[in-house]
C-alpha cells in the first residue's frame, strides 16, 4: 500500500508539467494577448505603450522560453505576478480562497446531508410516491438555471419580504462588528447562495446513491441479514449503505478541485468575492500567470483527489488491495 502511494505521488509532477504546458499553449493559440486586452482601442494609449508592455512581461519571447521561465519559478512555489495589477498571484488567490471555501464546503455538506437520505429512501421505497416526488424535485433543481433561481429568490426574500440580504458576503459597515456578530452575519448572507447551490446540486449525489443502493439491497448478503432477523433500519444503514457509498467516494474525490474553483456565474449573481470571478477575469484579460496558477492548483487537487479516493476505496472495502 505504502509503495503504491509513493509510486502514485511520483507520477504527479510529470503530469502537472504536461498539463500546464498544454494549458499555456492553448492560451497562446487563441487570438489576443494581455497588452491588447488592457490597452486595446484606448485612444489615449499609444501603440508603443502596448509594445512596451509586451516586452516588460516577456511576451515577445517564444512560448517555450516563457514556459521555461514559469516552470523555473513554479518549482520554488513562486506563482509570479499578475499581468493585470502586478500583484503576486498567490496573494490574489489567498484573498479569494476563503470566500469560495466557506461557500463550497458548506454547500457540499448540505448537499450530502440532504441527498444521501433522499437517495437511500427512494431506493428502499422504490417507485413509491416519495421516490417519484424526490426524483421529480431533484431533476427540476438540476434543470433550473442558477442565475434565474438566484434572481427569483433575491427578489422574493430580499426585495419583497426584506428578510434576507440580496448580495455580498458581508456589509461594508461590518468592520466594527464583534466576532460572534460577524459569524451570524455571514450565516445570514449564506442562506440564499447555499439554498441555490444545494437545490441545483442535489441531483448528482441523490441519484448515484439511489442507484447504487438499489444494486446493493438486491445482494445476497442483504437477504442473509434479513433472514437473520436483523431490524430493517440496521440492514439499510449498517449493511447496505456502507457498501453503497463506494461510488459516492469517487464523486467526493472529484469535487475537491471544484471546492477551490468556485463558479463564475454564481459568484457574479451573488456578488460573492470568490475564485470563479478571479479565474474568469484572468482568462478574459489573458492574465497568463493567474490562469496558470489557479489552473495548476486545480490540476494538483484533481490528481490528489483521485489518489485519495483510490486510497479510501481500500479503507472502506476490504476486497480492494493495491500492490
Amino acid at each position, binding site marked *: 500500500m505504502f509503495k503504491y502511494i509513493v509510486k502514485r505521488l511520483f507520477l504527479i509532477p510529470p503530469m502537472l508539467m504536461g498539463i500546464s504546458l498544454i494549458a499555456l499553449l492553448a492560451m497562446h493559440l487563441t487570438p489576443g494577448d494581455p497588452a*491588447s486586452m488592457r490597452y486595446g482601442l484606448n485612444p*489615449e494609449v499609444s501603440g508603443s505603450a502596448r509594445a512596451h508592455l509586451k516586452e516588460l512581461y516577456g511576451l515577445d519571447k517564444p512560448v517555450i522560453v516563457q514556459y521555461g521561465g514559469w516552470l523555473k519559478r513554479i518549482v520554488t512555489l513562486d506563482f509570479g505576478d499578475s499581468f493585470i495589477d502586478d500583484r503576486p498571484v498567490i496573494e490574489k488567490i489567498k484573498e479569494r480562497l476563503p470566500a469560495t471555501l466557506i461557500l463550497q464546503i458548506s454547500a457540499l455538506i448540505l448537499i450530502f446531508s440532504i441527498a444521501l437520505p433522499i437517495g437511500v429512501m427512494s431506493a428502499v421505497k422504490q417507485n413509491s410516491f416519495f421516490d417519484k416526488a424526490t426524483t421529480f424535485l431533484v431533476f427540476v433543481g438540476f434543470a433550473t438555471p442558477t*442565475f434565474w433561481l438566484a434572481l427569483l429568490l433575491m427578489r422574493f426574500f430580499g426585495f419583497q419580504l426584506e428578510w434576507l440580504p440580496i448580495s455580498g458576503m458581508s456589509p461594508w459597515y461590518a468592520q466594527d462588528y464583534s466576532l460572534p456578530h460577524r459569524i451570524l452575519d455571514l450565516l445570514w448572507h449564506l442562506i440564499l447562495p447555499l439554498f441555490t447551490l444545494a437545490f441545483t446540486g442535489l441531483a448528482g449525489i441523490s441519484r448515484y446513491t439511489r442507484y447504487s443502493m438499489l444494486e446493493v439491497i438486491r445482494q445476497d448478503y442483504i437477504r442473509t441479514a434479513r433472514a437473520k432477523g436483523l431490524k430493517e433500519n440496521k440492514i439499510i444503514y449498517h449493511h447496505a449503505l456502507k457498501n453503497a457509498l463506494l461510488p459516492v467516494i469517487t464523486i467526493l474525490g472529484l469535487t475537491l478541485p471544484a471546492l477551490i474553483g468556485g463558479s463564475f456565474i454564481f459568484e457574479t449573481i451573488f456578488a460573492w*468575492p470568490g475564485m470563479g*470571478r478571479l479565474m474568469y477575469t484572468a482568462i478574459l484579460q489573458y492574465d497568463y500567470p493567474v490562469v496558470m496558477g489557479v489552473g495548476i492548483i486545480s490540476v494538483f487537487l484533481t490528481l490528489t483527489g483521485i489518489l485519495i479516493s483510490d486510497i479510501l476505496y481500500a479503507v472502506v472495502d476490504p476486497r480492494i488491495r493495491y500492490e
Partner: protein
Amino acid sequence: MNRLKSKASVYLNRLIKKKALFITTVSFFIFSVPLAGAQEILSYGDAYVSGSIADAITLIPFLATDSTSGNINSMIFNGLTKVDKDLNITGDLAESYDVSDDKLTITFHLRKNVLWQDGVKFTADDVKFTFDIILDPRNAAPYAANFQDIEEIKVVDKYTVQFKYRKPYAPALLKLGTAIIPKHLLKNIDIKNCNFARDPVGTGPYKLAEWKTDQHIILDSFYNYFEGRPFIDKYVERVIPNQAVQFLELITGGIDSMGLTPYQYKYRTDTKKFKERFVKYKYLSRSYTYIGYNLKDPLFEDKRVRQALSYAVDRKAIIDGVLMGMGEECTGPFIKGTYAYNEEVRKYPYNPQKAKELLKEAGWIDRNNDGILEKDGLKFSFKLITNQGNKQREDVATIIQQNWREIGVEVEIQAIAWAAFITEFVDKRNFQALILGWTMPIDPDNYNVWHSDSMKDGGLNFISYRNKEVDSLIERGRETYNQDERQRIYRKIHEITAEEQPYTFLYFPYALPAVSKRFKGIEPAPAGISYNFIKWYVPEVEQKYTR
C-alpha cells in the same frame, strides 16, 4: 479652516434663504405646515454607497486605465489642472498657470495650503517627481506618450514648477492634470512592486480606509482637504457585477446610486415609489457609437457610397429602439456641446430615396433584379462586424442590416469575441465595416484616431483615413493655445469628416445615474454630477449611516 468656514456659511445662507422662501409660500396655503426642515442645514456625516460592475485594479493613478480605478483615484488624488463643471480647464493643485509667448513653457503656481493625507506638505518636488516616474520607461505608464514632448521639468521654487516643451502642445494643460503622487513616500521605491497600489496617499478629498477585493472600497473624508472638509464622511464603492442585482440593491437601499440602463431608466424606475426615493439624472456621455468603413476596401472608396450608406441609416429608429430614446444623434468626432463640436455640418437624415440616387450616381445599379446592387459584376455585399457581448451594438447592427437591405445593400453581421476582434480584425485591418464606439478625452485633439500617422502598426486609425487637410488641421490644433482658433480648427475637422463620412456617426448615449434623494447639493452640468461631490450633503435628520 477660515476659508472653509466662509465658504460653508455663504452656502448655508443661500440655502436657508431658499428654504425660507419655500416655507413662506407653502404656509401661505396650508397654515398647519410645521417648520420641519427649516433648520435643515449643511451637515457633515453619512456615507454615499454606489454600485460598480467591477472592482478597481490599481490605485497608482498613472497606471490605471479602467473606470472604477479612475473613479476612486479621482477622489484620492489631484492633478495640476482639472475641468470645471462646464468642461473648461481650471487650476487644481495649481492656483494659476501661465503659458510663455512662444508657447513652449508652461509655469504652474502651486497652492501653498495643500497637505498630503499623511500630513506632509505638498510642494513642486512632488510634481517633478510624478512626471519623472511617468516618463521612466521602466514603469510602462500607458499614457506616457501624452508627455513625450516635454523637454525639461524645472522646479523654480517650492511652489513653482515649469514645463518646457520641444514644440507647442496645447493639450498639455489638460494632460498635465494627471494625478500627482507623493515623493516622500515613493522615492527610491520600485513603484510597480510596492503596496502603494493598495495603500495610496494623495492630496484629494477622500483617503482610502479599507479595500476588500471584489467586495468594496471604503474612503474616509480628509478633514484637511485644501478646498475644505467634504460634507459626506464616507464614500463607498460596492462591487456588484450584475446589473439586475445592482438594481435590486438600489431599491432595497443596499446602495445609494448606480448607473441605470436605458430600460431601467424608462420602465423599471417610472414608479411613484421610485421617484419618491431617488432622483434620476440624464446627460450626454463623452462617447459615441459609429460604423467605420475600411477605406482600403474598393467598396467604400467612393465618398458618395459612404454618404448613401449614411442616408440609409435610420438613426432615430436606432435611438428609439435600442436606447429607448436615451441618446442623441452624433454627427462628428467631438463631444457634443463643447466648443469643438460643430452644429452646422452636413447631416444625413434618414432618406433611402436619396441614398439610392447617390448609389446610382456612383454606378451601383440592380442589373439582375435580385434586389442587390451591382457594379462591374461585383455585388454590393459585405460583412459588418462588431464585438460580441455588447447587446446594444448587436441590435444596432440588426437595424442597420434591415435599413441597408432596403436600398439594395446586403450585409452579413458577425459578432466576434473582444480579444480576437482586436488582434485578428482591427489590428490587422482585416475587416470591411465595423460597429464600435469611442470614449473621447476632454481635449478635442484626436491625432491618435484621425491623423494618417496613426494608420501604421496597431494605430487607432484602422479605417485608414487619409486627408491632408485634416492632418494639417490636427497638427495645427495641437500647437494652438488660442481657444477661438482651436474652435475654428476643430469645427473644420468636424465639417470635413461629416462631408466625407469615413464613419457613419450614429449616436451619443446618455449617462443615466440614479441617486438617493437624501443627497442634496447635486447640480447637473455638462461635466455630469460628481464634479462637486465634496459639496453634497445629507441633512442631519435624513442621515442613514451614523456612528
